């Protein structure tokens, strides 16, 4: 830590050619990025917010009926719906479980990577990259096949007969969780592994000489030093897992028996596209956006409080 700090202070402070007051140059340089961001991010979000304030269904889109302004009517309808609250709760719990499992598996395997020889390391890396590179739809379909009631090898190996994994609510969520963890741990693993390799080896040696256990080294040395990386992968995972769609949609056939496995994104899709209530779907999208923004901001703020910088 000390080393990086000194390095930072000796670096020349960035200066603009015309002294303290920045001219238009930075903005000009940023312009291409801003245009892309504006086009791909700001404008869709603006449209999303706009649609959520109207009564906007298929008939309005294709011009069969006039569009009417509803104010916050869609939000009132949404918040008055028990189903929405239930789906929101399920989504939060499911995403939390996915994030926890992904981080645990990813970090554990990252540490393992630093401990094994070259050949097993390569094998583990390749396996992880394979999982990472597999498209979500393919991965979900393969997992579903593995756990198929009639033909799945898992049932055969475990001797479960024709147990249907997707029938029970929790067992279906569990199955999806496995797939989500499987396809998202490589990102955590690779990132954390890179972080560990950047930790000066003398620090680890010193800890080992002091007789610290593997767990102790992780908790007292690696985790604090890797904090910025862990923050990034946690936020990424939270965002990904909160927005999970493909896995639920494919593996539980669009939300499970009687909609028992719905998560917010699939629910929004059902409202917006299947039922063509685009405005209600947009309102769900806005709510999701706000929740994710809030989670991220609160998390960053907590870290600031603890005196850590990103």
């Amino acid at each position: 830590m000390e080393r990086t700090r000194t390095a930072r202070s000796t670096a020349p402070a960035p200066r603009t050619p015309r002294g303290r007051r920045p001219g238009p140059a930075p903005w000009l340089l940023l312009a291409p990025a801003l245009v892309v961001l504006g086009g791909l991010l700001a404008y869709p979000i603006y449209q999303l917010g706009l649609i959520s304030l109207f009564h906007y269904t298929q008939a309005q889109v294709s011009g069969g009926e006039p569009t009417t302004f509803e104010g916050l009517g869609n939000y009132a309808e949404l918040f008055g719906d028990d189903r929405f609250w239930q789906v929101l709760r399920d989504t939060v719990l499911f995403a939390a479980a996915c994030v926890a499992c992904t981080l645990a598996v990813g970090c554990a395997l990252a540490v393992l990577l630093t401990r094994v020889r070259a050949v097993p390391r390569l094998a583990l890396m390749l396996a992880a990259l394979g999982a990472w590179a597999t498209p979500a739809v393919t991965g979900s379909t393969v997992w579903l096949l593995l756990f198929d009631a009639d033909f799945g090898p898992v049932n055969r190996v475990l001797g479960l007969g024709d147990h249907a994994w997707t029938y029970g609510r929790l067992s279906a969520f569990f199955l999806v969780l496995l797939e989500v963890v499987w396809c998202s741990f490589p990102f955590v693993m690779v990132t954390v592994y890179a972080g560990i390799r950047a930790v000066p080896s003398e620090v680890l040696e010193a800890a080992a000489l002091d007789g610290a256990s593997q767990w102790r080294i992780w908790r007292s040395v690696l985790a604090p030093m890797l904090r910025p990386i862990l923050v990034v992968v946690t936020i990424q995972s939270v965002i990904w897992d909160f927005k999970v769609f493909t896995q639920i949609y494919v593996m539980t056939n669009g939300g499970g028996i009687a909609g028992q496995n719905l998560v917010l994104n699939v629910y929004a899709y059902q409202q917006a596209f299947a039922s063509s209530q685009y405005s209600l779907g947009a309102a769900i999208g806005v709510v999701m956006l706000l929740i994710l923004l809030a989670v991220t901001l609160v998390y960053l703020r907590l870290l600031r409080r603890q005196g850590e910088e990103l």
Partner: protein
Amino acid sequence: MKLSVRMVALAAVLATAACAPQTSGTSSSDKDEKTGTLRVWLFQEVNNKPKEQAVDSVLAAFEKAHEGAEVTVEYIPVETRAQRIKAAFNDPKSAPDLVEYGNTDTAGYVRDGGLADVTEEFEAWEETEDTDPTARQSVTVDGKVYGAPYFVGVRALYYRTDVFEELGLDVPRTQAELISTAKKIRAAKPGMYGIAVGGAYTYGAMPFIWAHGGELATGKGGSYASAIDGADARKGIEAYTSLFGDDNCPAAKCAGMGGNDTVTAFASGKAAMAIGGDFSHAAVEAGKVKGKYAVVPLPGVEPGSIAPAFAGGNNLGVLKSTSHRTLAVDLMKRLASKEAQGELFEGMGFLPTFSDVRRRAAEEEPFVKPFVETLAAGTKFVPASPAWARIDSSLVLPTMFQEVVSGRKDVATASADAAKKMNEAFGSVG
């Protein structure tokens, strides 16, 4: 600071400039090109080959008759048809010119403003006079015609003659007998479903509701009210859901099944009975059970009666946004012509929508007899409301059946909840 003020101003301008979400032009295309490529979307059936052959021969004749016109056909999966067709309405540029659509969707698509009014061409078509009245009804909204009927579909009871013979069972004559027969078969052959049923198989469940005197909804014209929680309808739901369980079709497997899944189960020999359509004939013939099954009308409550079937089927319609209207209408008529429907029947077993063609088909092909009998006994249709598309695509009825068969809710609660959702949908369309 200055800059942020400018940004705010810019944002304000943007916000006021676009004060309502986008609406794609309701106006039909004013172009009517006589050459170019026509895009056609047809449904992908379980066994699609014969359909492709029937369609290809029509296309060959069409392309010969119209020089410079080409046709590309895409077979779209039935499960995602709703999204695909809506996307086509939203983006006229990438939309096809001619689509096949389920006849339950007519009212919704017309309200969405997606289908072209072809009343004039339809009336002037010499083959129209033989179109059967219920088929005609299914392309008509408020007296205007929005397409041509492609085929009608009706469901009946498929059963395995060899299994019935082996176990010494009689063909069920009432729904009570149907249920007890199914359970007897399951008890004797635990690896087999007595009758394959599906929690998501709405059209297989409807005859049970109707046979008990229940209705999905009551009303006329624009205003409907759900009747799914009525006492008679509940008896029907009770009867249908009693077929889910380890003594017939285990809920763990059957709750998620749809119509095609039950037909596949029957065709592969996993079920002794199934409620299948005339349109399932080809798929069953291609399966393991070929030559070992027969079909009878689905029994009603009274001995010898026939449960009212759902008069399904598909239509062909020209999209309002087409820039080849004349060509598209001509292709629609060719695909839905007596000759093409006759060929489609031979290949796929889809019942023609022309009474005379159907009569001839029944004479040639004894297989059609139970289905024609079912049609003659009286069929029912889903509420002719634009809300039906929404009720259908938001899975209101499958959710109800699944809630009951998984033991999450009893029939009274589940049907009351479904009725509430249906009424919301009916209410939202005025």
